[in-house]
């Protein structure tokens, strides 16, 4: 039953209230939406940033490894190359000594030169032994040559020792044929023995001459500081 005016009024009021409710709701929704976006961005950014750092660290590490490996490989290569060169050098040096060893026997075919060598070898032995009786062992092929120089050898010995005598015997056992030359001498029933073969001389000399051999073949080593 109310008046027309009241009805319109009420409607208006209701409409206002409805609009108010709707507006409130819209504002709230806007607020929530805005917050949602903000949190969306923050969360996404945080996660991405976090993982990006991890990824970066991971690949940095791997890159370092790769570089390190490269350096190691490089160093190994250089090392191997140097060793190869050094080995070749040593091979050349010993090759030279071996060749000398092969040619050792050459002198034995020339009695003019070999005779004095034999004599000197024997005298050297006598000087070392300083014994009254000495046995000389030579190669069978050298027998006559040795016999021919014994007198001079003894003379040399006598002079150097102011008159000491020595009796030299030639052993009936000879040096084996694979010996290039030279003599062995012993005394007191084989208790003292001197090996003065050409081979033994070469061995001694080659060992002492290695630096000289290297310098002759390759030139002076500019990196070397001490030469004694």
């Amino acid at each position, binding site marked *: 039953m*109310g008046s027309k005016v009241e009805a319109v009024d*009420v409607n208006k009021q*209701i409409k206002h*209230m*409805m609009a108010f*409710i709707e507006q409130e*709701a*819209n504002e*709230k*929704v806007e607020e*929530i*939406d805005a917050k*949602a976006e903000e949190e*969306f*961005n923050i*969360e*996404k950014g945080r*996660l*991405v940033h976090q*993982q*990006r750092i991890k990824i*970066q660290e*991971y*690949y940095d590490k791997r890159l370092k490894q790769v570089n390190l490996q*490269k350096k190691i*490989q*490089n160093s190994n*290569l250089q090392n191997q*190359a140097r060793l*190869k*060169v050094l080995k*070749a050098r040593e091979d*050349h040096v010993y090759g*030279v000594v071996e*060749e*000398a060893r092969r040619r050792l026997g*050459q002198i034995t075919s020339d009695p003019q030169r070999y005779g004095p060598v034999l004599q*000197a070898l024997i005298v*050297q032995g006598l*000087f070392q032994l300083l014994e009254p009786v000495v046995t000389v062992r030579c190669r069978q092929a050298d027998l006559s040559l040795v016999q021919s120089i*014994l007198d001079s050898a*003894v003379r*040399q010995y*006598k002079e*150097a020792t102011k*008159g*000491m*005598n020595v*009796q*030299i*015997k*030639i052993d009936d056992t000879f040096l084996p044929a694979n010996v290039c030359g030279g003599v062995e001498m012993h005394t*007191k*029933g084989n208790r003292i023995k001197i090996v003065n073969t050409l081979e033994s*001389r070469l061995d001694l*000399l080659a060992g002492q001459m290695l630096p*000289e*051999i290297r310098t*002759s073949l*390759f030139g002076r080593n500019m990196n070397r500081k001490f030469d004694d």
Partner: protein
Amino acid sequence: MTRTSDGISSLLAAEKKAVEKIEDAKKNKVRRLKAAKEQADREIEGLQREQEAEFRKVQSAHSGSKDAMVQRVDGETEARLKSMESDVATHREQIIARILSMVYEITPKMHENARFEQQEQPAPPKHVQYGHQEEEPEDQEEDQEEEE
């Protein structure tokens, strides 16, 4: 009466609608958060793939350069070995001759501390003899005279 209840039900409906709207917004917020994670994951995946590709590039560049380096070092080594061979060939004969001459040149020297007194002796005994060496020199001299 109907008008008032109309009004009230309209308001109630509006209220209900408002509440639903807000609920939707809240649900949306939850969905957005979830989406953030998913998008982040995808972006991260992309980053990872990028970096991996970069890394692979560097790696293959490295192995390429390794071969180049091996070749270079080998080349240098060969050159050094060759020059060594020619050095050796030039000086070899000379040094071999020197070694041999040192072997053949012998200067017997007495020990520097050895001292001798001048001996007076008869002529030295003949020394060439075959046979085994005896222990005593005196015996030998006897044998010697027998042999002679």
